[in-house]
């Protein structure tokens, strides 16, 4: 159906190497998210898979067949762009039907496919509108509709939610996940937002400077980050890193403790003063200045009556302390 294999993929623009050497396997029906800070090469990687950029070196296989030199249209992939890239002069119906029209599909099949897609995406009432008459979320759905009708081997999403407001983003995230459950088609999704990655992915590829830092399920990444970069990137608020004497006592160059892995006690290991307390209702985030360590973020569930300037005593949960060596690799 739709497995994607990358073998020693390399991409340079002029003299600048964006992706030095990546090998990667996406299984059929899997939802894989590429995540990383901006400029890490995740969009380039997606565009290489789509065929919108030429490979400098290496091989891309879809279902085992080498497509490294194949034109984008013949790779049987669909892409949803960050700007949606809808055709502004065509109605919603025209936009969704466009790929089929290019295939010269018969009219009945085209109508059936458009109506199906519209029903799945709740666009039936908008089929005759122009894209500019739609809201951001609706446009997003039209772009997805256009991707669905081709019945591609895999969907590629290039930061599709970054132009939506926060509430809509959560909604669309759910819709895309549900769509994946329904269609069971391979999806490759690019985002810089680790929350999107954690919530949607079957497996996550964490990219940094064109290299894969770690490839695994969300929980693997959370529980066993391979190195400092992944540890810092996955999880919100960020993991606390502590170096120096305190780390030495654990036999590591750096230790990492997630904000949620602290207990607030009366006579804990560390004592500090609360700098800022953020009360979210469900959680309380405390930014604590601990003597000899620096600022530490603490996440406690529920409403806690802490305020600025208060003294607090903390205990890290020993079993959940991550230890890293001098090279930043997990120990």
């Amino acid at each position, binding site marked *: 159906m739709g497995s994607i294999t990358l073998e020693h993929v390399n991409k340079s623009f002029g003299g600048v190497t964006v992706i030095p050497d990546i090998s990667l396997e996406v299984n059929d029906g899997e939802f894989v998210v590429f995540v990383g800070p901006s400029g890490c090469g995740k969009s380039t990687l997606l565009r290489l898979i789509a065929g919108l950029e030429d490979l400098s070196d290496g091989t891309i296989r879809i279902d085992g067949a080498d497509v490294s030199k194949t034109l*984008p249209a013949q790779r049987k992939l669909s892409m949803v762009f960050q700007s949606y890239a809808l055709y502004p002069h065509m109605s919603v119906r025209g936009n969704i039907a466009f790929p089929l029209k290019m295939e010269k599909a018969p009219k009945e099949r085209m109508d059936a496919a458009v109506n199906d897609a519209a029903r799945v995406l709740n666009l039936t009432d908008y089929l005759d509108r122009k894209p500019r008459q739609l809201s951001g979320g609706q446009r997003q759905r039209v772009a997805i509709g256009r991707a669905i009708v081709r019945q591609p081997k895999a969907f590629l999403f290039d930061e599709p939610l970054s132009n939506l407001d926060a509430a809509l983003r959560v909604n669309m995230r759910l819709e895309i996940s549900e769509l994946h459950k329904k269609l069971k088609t391979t999806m490759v999704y690019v985002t810089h937002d680790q929350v999107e990655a954690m919530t949607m992915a079957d497996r996550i590829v964490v990219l940094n400077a064109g290299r894969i830092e770690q490839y695994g399920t969300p929980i693997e990444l959370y529980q066993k980050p391979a190195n400092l970069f992944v540890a810092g990137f996955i999880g919100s608020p960020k993991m606390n890193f502590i170096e120096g004497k305190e780390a030495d006592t654990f036999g590591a160059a750096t230790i990492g403790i997630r904000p949620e892995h602290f207990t607030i006690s009366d006579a804990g290991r560390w004592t500090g003063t609360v700098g800022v307390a953020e009360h979210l209702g469900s959680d309380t985030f405390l930014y604590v200045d601990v003597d000899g360590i620096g600022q530490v973020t603490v996440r406690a569930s529920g409403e806690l009556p802490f305020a600025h300037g208060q003294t607090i005593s903390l205990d890290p949960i020993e079993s959940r302390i991550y230890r890293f060596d001098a090279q930043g690799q997990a120990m």
Partner: protein
Amino acid sequence: MATRQTQVAARLMMSPAVLLLLAWMIVPLSMTLWFSFQRYNLLMPGMEYFTGLDNYRYFFANPSFWAALTNTLVLVGGVLAITLIGGTLMALLLDQPMFGQGIVRLLVISPFFVMPTVSALVWQNMMMNPVYGLFSYIARVFGVQPIDWFSQVPLFSIIMIVAWQWLPFATLILLTALQSLDEEQREAAGMDGAGPIPLFFYIILPHLARALTVVMLIQTIFLLSIFAEIFVTTGGGPGTATTNLTFLIYIQSLLQFDVGLASAGGIVAVILANIVAIFLLRIVGKNLDA
């Protein structure tokens, strides 16, 4: 400009310019209108009198009028067709990445800076001359009888000269429009399976519609009053083959000294231009709203 105060200020500031432009237009227009109802010949000064609609009657009865009207429309239509189609193709070509793009673009635009009389003379003497012109040279290389452009296809020759002058303008505007096309839209169309030709007809051409409209409107305004190219090359002939309305009015006022008749022609030309403008705005107006 939201507040009432700024609106008033804006109007006050603009009013001198508006008034000047209004006077600039209204004085000649009303004088022409006035003369068009007068028996007024420069050969008989001081003998002007009111003749009602006689000038108009004579103008329409003149067989040259219908020829001139047809020539005007053919001239405008021909130049528009060549510049719009040619301009689109040129813009597509210049949009391709190539070595020396800046210089090439500058060169392509240069004909627009040549004044009409000069370009007409260059075409007449260096390109279309039946004896030593470039075209006749090429024809002789292939052993074909050279065409005497200005006597065999006079109107087409004029159309070619004018189209050559206006092609850069169309190219320039269309090129800018082409460059504003979202790259992701092209990529999306590519992934949807659109080859170069469907890409052009389904994505690029609709995107260019507005720019094409603007080019058409601006060019029509200028093309209705083509004069220099005709004056320099054919002088309206042979017969009335290249006489357009502007040239006909020139003949009547400055060669036959009949100011009254020429003014009537002028008013007819104004009305014609307005009809064409309304017509054009009607068909293309919805493109401009979008």
